[in-house]
């Protein structure tokens, strides 16, 4: 009889994949999305930089022109200047959506009958497409048929043709944009208010805090995450404003409502021939304007991530 030595049975060698499974799996899972995202988002950013140094009609050969596009752009292009200032107007005025949204959230943060329906009704303009909102407001502003002027007349005021007046048109469009954006900020704050620590509020009440002081010192600090998101989406929204302008005024009257995003589109795909190189240069300027904010957002998120570990 042979005695079986109790040497371990030869373990079936595990495959290379099995041994490295935990290290490899994430890359396999990331691969399709990263390829897709690179092809359609990351690489095009650099291509746009490249194109902005050329003159190109989108079909034929690109001609290298160096920084000529930028020189023309920054060297007194009237349309560019108007667009740039309008972008700044959008940025500042669009931020009004945050205090407005907070005010409506404070109004609606109650538990009365039917309040849920009210909240939905206040929120749902956000769900409409910007095209529809733009159309709705351009009809609302109509000098003859529009409800706004009907109301103004009812109170004995004269009619205004908001979208036909170069000094008012941009503000009219921003007001239309504020409508859905305020709704979004409202819902962020309603969610935030829901999570406010009731004990802190009670404690502050016992200390005699109320009204605005309470809001400023006790409530707002607790709403910080909501404010951050509201700020991010509002800034991005302001710089992305394209649909409203295209639908409501198409850049007019006399080009007074152009913003960079619209001007870029106009130059690249205009009826007078495609000027892709010049368009790309405008896009690059817009990109750098946005990059200031993107860097700030990413930095804030990075801090949070480090704190979470």
């Amino acid at each position, binding site marked *: 009889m042979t005695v079986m030595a109790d040497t371990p049975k030869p373990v079936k060698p595990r495959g290379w994949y099995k041994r490295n*499974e*935990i*290290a490899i*799996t994430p890359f396999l*899972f990331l691969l*399709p*999305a*990263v390829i*897709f*995202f690179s*092809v*359609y988002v990351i690489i*095009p*950013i650099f*291509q*746009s930089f490249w*194109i902005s140094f050329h003159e190109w009609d*989108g079909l034929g050969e690109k001609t290298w022109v160096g920084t000529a596009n930028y020189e023309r752009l920054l060297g007194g292009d009237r349309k560019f200047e108007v667009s740039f200032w309008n972008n700044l107007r959008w940025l500042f005025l669009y931020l009004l959506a945050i205090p407005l949204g907070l005010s409506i959230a*404070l*109004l609606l*943060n*109650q538990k*009365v009958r039917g309040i849920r329906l009210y909240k939905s*009704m*206040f929120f749902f*303009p956000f*769900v409409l497409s*910007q*095209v529809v909102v733009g*159309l*709705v407001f351009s*009809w*609302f502003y109509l000098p003859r*048929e529009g409800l706004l002027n*009907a109301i103004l007349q009812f109170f004995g005021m004269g009619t205004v043709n908001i979208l036909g007046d170069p000094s008012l048109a941009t503000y009219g469009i921003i007001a239309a944009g504020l409508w859905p954006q305020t709704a979004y900020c409202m*819902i*962020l704050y309603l*969610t935030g208010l829901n*999570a*406010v620590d009731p004990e802190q*509020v009670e404690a502050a009440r016992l200390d005699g805090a109320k009204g605005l002081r*309470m809001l400023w010192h006790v409530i707002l600090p607790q709403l910080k*995450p*909501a404010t951050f998101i509201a700020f991010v989406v509002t800034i*991005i929204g302001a710089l*992305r404003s*394209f*649909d409203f302008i*295209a639908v409501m005024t198409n850049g007019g009257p006399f080009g007074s409502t152009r913003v960079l*995003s619209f001007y*870029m589109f106009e130059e*690249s795909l205009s009826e007078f021939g495609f000027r892709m190189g010049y*368009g790309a240069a405008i*896009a690059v300027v*817009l*990109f750098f304007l*946005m990059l200031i904010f*993107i860097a700030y957002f*990413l930095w804030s998120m*990075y801090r949070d991530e480090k704190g979470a570990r």
Partner: protein
Amino acid sequence: MFPTPIEKTSRTWQLTYQAILPFAMIVWLLPLIAVAMFSIKSSADFASGNYWGMPSTFEGFVNYGKVFFESDMPRYMLNSVLITVPTMIGAVALSCMTGFALGIYKFKGNLLIFFMFIAGNFVPFQILMVPVRDLTVNMGLYDTKLGLVLFHIAFQTGFCTLFMRNFIRALPFELIEAARVEGIAEWRIFWFIVLPLMKPALAALAVLIFTFIWNDYFWAVVLTQGPDAQPVTAGITSFNSQFVAQYHLMSAGSIVAAIPPVAMFFLMQKHFIAGLTLGAVK
């Protein structure tokens, strides 16, 4: 609770509050109410200058009938569905995988890839426009629904990854560790353990992406041209040039175009709001 609960305030304020609510809502929705009013009026009312009085006749059926039977609107709507639904499925599927990879595994470059997705998501569309249009033309996909779908999937993956990764991060990690001790393959952990827990996130993302894509206008104008491929947001402008200055028909048209995302919102309200406000509370 802040502000002070209404039950604890004076009777007068309670009554005032109850009166303010409907009034504020009507003011808030005024532009929309105006459009709804327009859409049921007859062209005779507009001709006679009766813009804001009572409609002389109820023409709702006629106006909406025209939208459905005498214009390209149904085609645009169908295009929108055929663009929106595949995008929704594609972007959610891809981001489940990226969310899992970035939320569960620790590896070098994790945060970098994650931030690449977020940063790409914030970028202005215009910087992508010329190259993406060129790419789509070269692939022979200009003016096709597929061309739009492919771009939308790629771009929305950025936002969806942010969402999914943070959601998966909040799941109890012990579950995955326990499964690993049992020797379960990693892809099975994804499929049988993580995915079933992600159902609420899947629902929230699906409704959000549906609305975002349905409402997209910019890419629809850049990548498509005619009624063969254009979604309803772009189609509505050609609809409006068909019925120029006929406000009753244009109003009816835009209401029809707006209904699907609005219906989606009211049906899936809880998921929708949960999705939009993710991260608003720490």
